[in-house]
């Protein structure tokens, strides 16, 4: 995904911190539809928080590099994988 891209969260996905674990819940799935929920690691959880329909992916990446002691290549790789997952489950548009 391009660094200039801006993503918006799907309002039907809500994060909760349950037992120190960040969980992404599809809150409008019914008992018949809900198959999965998703857990986020620390970086993914921070990325999710930063997605606000205004920040570009480049800005989010910069912020992640500031917040976590990690190298740019790793952040890029991890973010790309996470954003692909989010797209797949329609958590972002």
């Amino acid at each position, binding site marked *: 995904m391009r660094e200039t891209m801006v993503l918006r969260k799907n309002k039907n996905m*809500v994060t*909760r911190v349950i037992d120190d674990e960040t969980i992404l819940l599809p*809150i*409008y799935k019914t*008992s*018949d539809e*809900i198959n999965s*929920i*998703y857990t986020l690691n620390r970086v993914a959880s921070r990325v999710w928080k930063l997605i606000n329909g205004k920040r570009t992916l480049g800005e989010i990446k910069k912020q992640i590099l500031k917040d976590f002691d990690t190298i740019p290549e790793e952040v890029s790789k991890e973010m790309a994988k996470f954003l692909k997952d989010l797209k797949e489950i329609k958590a972002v548009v």
Partner: protein
Amino acid sequence: MKEIQYKKFSWRTHKKNWRGKKPNVCQFELTFKCGLHCAHCYTDCYNKPSYIKKELSTRQVKSIINKMHRMGVVWLCFTGGDPLTRDDFLELYSYAKDKGFITTIFTNGYSMTPEIADYLVKRPPFVIELTLNGITQKTYEKMARVKGSYSKVMAGLEMLRKRNLPLKIKTMATRQNIEELSGIKQFLESRGLKFAPSTLLHAGLNGDITPCKLRLKPEEVIALDKMFSLKSMGEDSECPPTHNSGKKGLREENRLFRCAAGGSDGINVDPYGKMFMCSCLREPAISLLQARQPDIEKALFDTFPTIADRTFETSSKCRYCDIIDLCGLCPGKAYLETGSMEKPVEWFCELAAKGVEYAQNLS
């Protein structure tokens, strides 16, 4: 991001917080107001304007929802009375949804409107559990004690069904609808819905034993169990399972509570904002409006589990009963009906004895 099967998440979360860690589940009685006045209902005693006017405001409910969110509650059930009778129901429902609760609604369908149903299509709950106690006007209105209720409830049910909303039907089997139970089963099954009757009535929250007088005879309960493959014997299926089930030494432990009661991962909140252990046992309670976090934690991790760990203090015959595992009575129900958590209720004794007879005849 890791994907977890919902069932696994549910099982893991319940297991992790079982007995005194933190609540995962909350049954929130948004109001005791209800369009019906069923004689078997345990909350109808408070379905009066003088009580309803003391119930929580919108702002207060939201403040309690915030506290539940901070407690880490995952599954939130809106019940009553009928929660749909609140003018602000959709506002509260949306508020809870936006907070990330997995939300269930208990209703009788009487106050369902096309507006509410349409809204729920856009933002569906996890499940709606609707109570249907009759399929003829005569039986339904005899039980509900409200003229015109039958057509309103049937319309409510159809609104939900036609919109394919997630629906489960519950039926309370009483003296008033026993003749109609087979018909209800047929009615539901022809609409792709499951028949799930319960026979375990208990006294009103004010101690009124009128609901108990509507219980089926124990032999009728056994007959229904046979006819509909139910399981009326033993603990209430809606209660948390016994923490000691199947463990040797339960009787020696002299434990009063066979269910997990306040030591499970569930809490109950009434329309005045009081939090307590189970829907039948409402003392001790803590006001969630006034309580601060340390008070809430003390109730959850100390007061409630201490009650749940209580042992028999009297020589109640329940204490020495050999067939108690077949008994549907619990300290909460006993308290409502007799004023004592330890006193037996003869109907449950007879039902358990009939259950033994039934099992013996099978073998």
